[in-house]
C-alpha cells in the first residue's frame, strides 16, 4: 500500500505525513498530457492558499519538490495511458488512493494523442523519431478507467477550474460532485445565444457536447468543437445527418468528431459511421492487459 510509486517525480525527497497533521491528503499525478488540467489547480489564484491550508498537498510535482508517501485521501489524475510502465504505475496509484478522480480529456477519453488509435501500428513513431527503437510506447492511448476503477471523471480540454474546486470539495466531504451532464446546446438556449447551426449553417457540436465551458465558442461566433466530450445523452446520428444535409462532406464530419475526445464512445461511433478508420481496439481480437510495445 505504501510502496513507493515507480520512479517518478519527487520520490527522492519523500517523507511520511506527520501523524499530527489532521488534514486530508491530496495527490496530483500526470500521465500523457499537456499539464493544462493540473495548471487549472494553480490557476485557482483566489483559492490556492486556502486550499493548501485545508488539505495537505502530498504529491504535486509541478508545484513542489516535497512529497509524502501514500496512502492518499484523494488522487487527481491527469493524462492518458500510453506506455506499459504507465499502465503499471496507475495500478499502484489506485492502490494508494482512497478516492481517484480523473481530470481532463486525456484521462477520461485518451486525449488528442488518442488519434494514434486510428493509425496503422508503428506509423506515428516512425513519422516523428529517427530511431523508433529508442522509443517505448504503446500503439494506443487509453483513458484511466480502462485500467483501474475511477470514482469520478471530470471532463474537459481543459477542465473548468470552478468544476475542479467543486469536485475536490465534494470528494473530501464524501458526497457526489454536482456537475451538469447536459449539452452545450441547452447552455446556449439558457443564455439566449442565437443558434449558429440553424441561423448561420456553422458546423457545431453543441447539441452532443457536454456543458462545462459555459458555451464559450458560440459566444464568439464559433461552432462548438467538442472539448468536453459527449453529453450524458446524445443523438450524434441526427446531428451528423443535419451536417451532411447542410453540405458538409462525410470526411469533414468524421474529422469534427475526432479531436480531443475521439475515443469517447459516442464520438468514436459517429466518426466511424461517417467513414473514419476503425480504432486498433476494434481491429484486433481481445488481447492481453499489456499490449505489445512499439519498438
Amino acid at each position, binding site marked *: 500500500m505504501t510502496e513507493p510509486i515507480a520512479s517518478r517525480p519527487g520520490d527522492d525527497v519523500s517523507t511520511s505525513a506527520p501523524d499530527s497533521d489532521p488534514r486530508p491528503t491530496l495527490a496530483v499525478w500526470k500521465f500523457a498530457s499537456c499539464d493544462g488540467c493540473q495548471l487549472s489547480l494553480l490557476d485557482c489564484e483566489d483559492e490556492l492558499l486556502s486550499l493548501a491550508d485545508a488539505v495537505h498537498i502530498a504529491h504535486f510535482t509541478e508545484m513542489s519538490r516535497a512529497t509524502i508517501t501514500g496512502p492518499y485521501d484523494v488522487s487527481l489524475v491527469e493524462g492518458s495511458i500510453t*506506455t506499459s510502465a504507465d499502465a503499471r504505475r496507475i495500478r499502484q496509484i489506485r492502490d494508494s488512493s482512497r478516492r481517484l478522480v480523473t481530470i481532463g480529456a486525456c484521462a477520461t477519453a485518451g486525449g488528442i494523442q488518442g488519434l494514434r488509435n486510428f493509425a496503422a501500428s508503428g506509423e506515428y513513431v516512425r513519422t516523428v523519431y529517427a530511431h523508433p527503437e529508442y522509443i517505448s510506447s504503446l500503439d494506443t492511448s487509453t483513458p484511466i478507467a480502462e485500467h483501474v476503477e475511477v470514482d469520478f471523471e471530470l471532463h474537459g480540454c481543459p477542465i473548468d477550474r470552478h468544476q475542479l474546486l467543486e469536485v475536490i470539495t465534494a470528494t473530501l466531504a464524501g458526497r457526489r460532485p454536482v456537475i451538469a451532464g447536459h449539452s452545450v446546446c441547452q447552455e446556449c438556449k439558457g443564455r439566449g445565444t442565437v443558434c449558429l447551426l440553424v441561423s448561420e449553417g456553422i458546423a457545431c457540436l453543441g447539441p452532443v457536447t457536454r456543458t462545462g465551458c459555459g458555451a464559450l465558442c458560440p459566444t464568439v461566433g464559433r461552432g462548438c468543437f467538442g472539448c468536453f466530450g459527449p453529453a450524458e445523452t446524445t443523438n450524434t446520428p441526427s446531428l451528423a445527418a443535419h451536417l451532411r444535409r447542410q453540405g458538409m462532406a462525410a470526411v469533414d464530419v468524421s474529422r469534427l468528431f475526432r479531436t480531443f475526445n475521439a475515443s469517447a464512445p459516442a464520438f468514436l461511433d459517429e466518426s466511424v459511421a461517417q467513414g473514419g478508420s476503425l480504432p486498433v481496439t476494434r481491429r484486433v481480437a481481445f488481447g492481453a492487459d499489456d499490449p505489445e510495445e512499439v519498438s
Partner: protein
Amino acid sequence: MTHGSHPPRVISVEGLSRVEGEGSLRVEVRDGTVMDVALEIFEPPRYFEALLVGRHFTEAPDITARICGICPVAYQMSACAAMEDACGVTVDEHVGRLRRLLYCGEWIQSHALHIYLLHAPDFLGCADAVELAQRDRVAVERGLQIKRTGNLVMETVGGRAVHPVNVRVGGFYRAPDPASVRALIEPLRRARDAALTTVEWVAGFEFPDVTGDYRFVALRDGDRYAIERGRPASSDGLDVSPAEFADLVVEEHVARSTALHARLEGKDPYLTGPLARYALNGEKLSPMAAEAAGRAGLSPVCTNPFQSIVVRAVELVLACDEALSLAESYTPPDPPALTLTPRAGVGTGATEAPRGLLFHQYEIDGSGIIRWARIVPPTSQNQLTIEADLRRVAQDAIELGDDELRWRCEQSVRNHDPCISCAAHFLDIKVVPS
C-alpha cells in the same frame, strides 16, 4: 563502467519537480570531477507531427495548443503564422496588435507562475510556494495577483486561459468589445506595479557565481521587443527568415530522450528564452522595464543563468507595460480575421513562447490538408545548453553535500523554465558523486 577503486558519486533526481512535464537529471562525479550529466526526458511521446497529417490547416492552432497547457497561445500563434505564410498572406496591424495583447497575457501568466511558484522557492530554501507563503504570504499573493491578471487578459481576448478558443488562422473569431478590453486597464496597472516590486524582490536573492558561455538566439522585430513575430537572430551575427532558420536547425534523436536535441548549423548548442531575448533586444525594452533592469543591477548581457529570474521579472514589467498600452489604444480589428484560401506549399511560423523561440513548419496541399508538420519547441532547442549548464553548476558546487548538490542541480535546470510536456515531445534528474 567502474574502473577505479571507488564507485562514482551519483546524484540523481528521479523526477524533476516544479517544471512542466516529466523528466529526470543525473550527474556522475569521479574524484571530484563531473564526468557525465544527463537530462533525461521520459514524458511519453504524443506524436503531434504525425497526428497533424491529414488534418485541415485551420485545425492546427487548436490541435497544437494541446501540446502545452502552460503556453497554448505560443503554439496557436506559431501555427497561425506558419499557415498564413503558406497561404501568402499577412494579417493587418489591428489583428497583429490584438495577438500581441493576447500573447502578453500568456507571458504574464507563465512568468508569474515560474517566478513565484516554480523558481523563487529554490532561492529561499522552500520546497514550494505553500511553504514560502507560510513565511511571506504577501509575496506569494502578489505573484498570484499578477498571474490572475495574465489569465484575465487571455480570457478577455482568447475566451479561455488554458487553450483559448477565439484564435483562428487569419485572426480571431470575434474581436473583443472595447469595454471589456478597457476593463483590463486597471488590473494591468496594478499588475505592472506588482511586477516592478517583483524585480526588486528577486534582485535581492543570492545568486551562485556562475558564468555561462552562451550562443543566444531570439527573434528580432524592428524597434519592438519581439514576441509574436520577428526574424531569428543570434549573438554571433545570424539574421535570417524563419524559413531559413528552420533549415539551419538540425534535430538529433538520442536514446535518453523523447525530446529531440536541436543544434544550429550542426554546430554548438544554443540558448533561447529570456536571457537570449534580453541580450539581443534589451535596448527595445519599454522605458519602465529598462529602468527596472538598471535598478536591479543587470548588465546589458546577463550570462549568470541563476539571474534569469531577474530577467524574467523585467520581462514581466515589459509584458504588463505592453499589454497596458495595447489595451489603452485598442481598436477592434474589422474584419476580425482574413479569410484564407489554401494553396499548396510550405509555411513557417516563429514566435517567442515565454520560455523561448518556438517554430512550426507545415506543408499543405491545395485543398488545405496538412501533408507534413514539424514543431520545434524551446526546450528541445535549449536542452543541450541546459546540460552544459548542469555540468558547470555541478562542478562549481562539487564541495556541497549530496542533498544540497542535488537541489542546486535541480535549480540549475529550473533556471531555464523547461517545459517537458512541450519537448517530448523532457527530463529525469539523477546526480552521481564519487
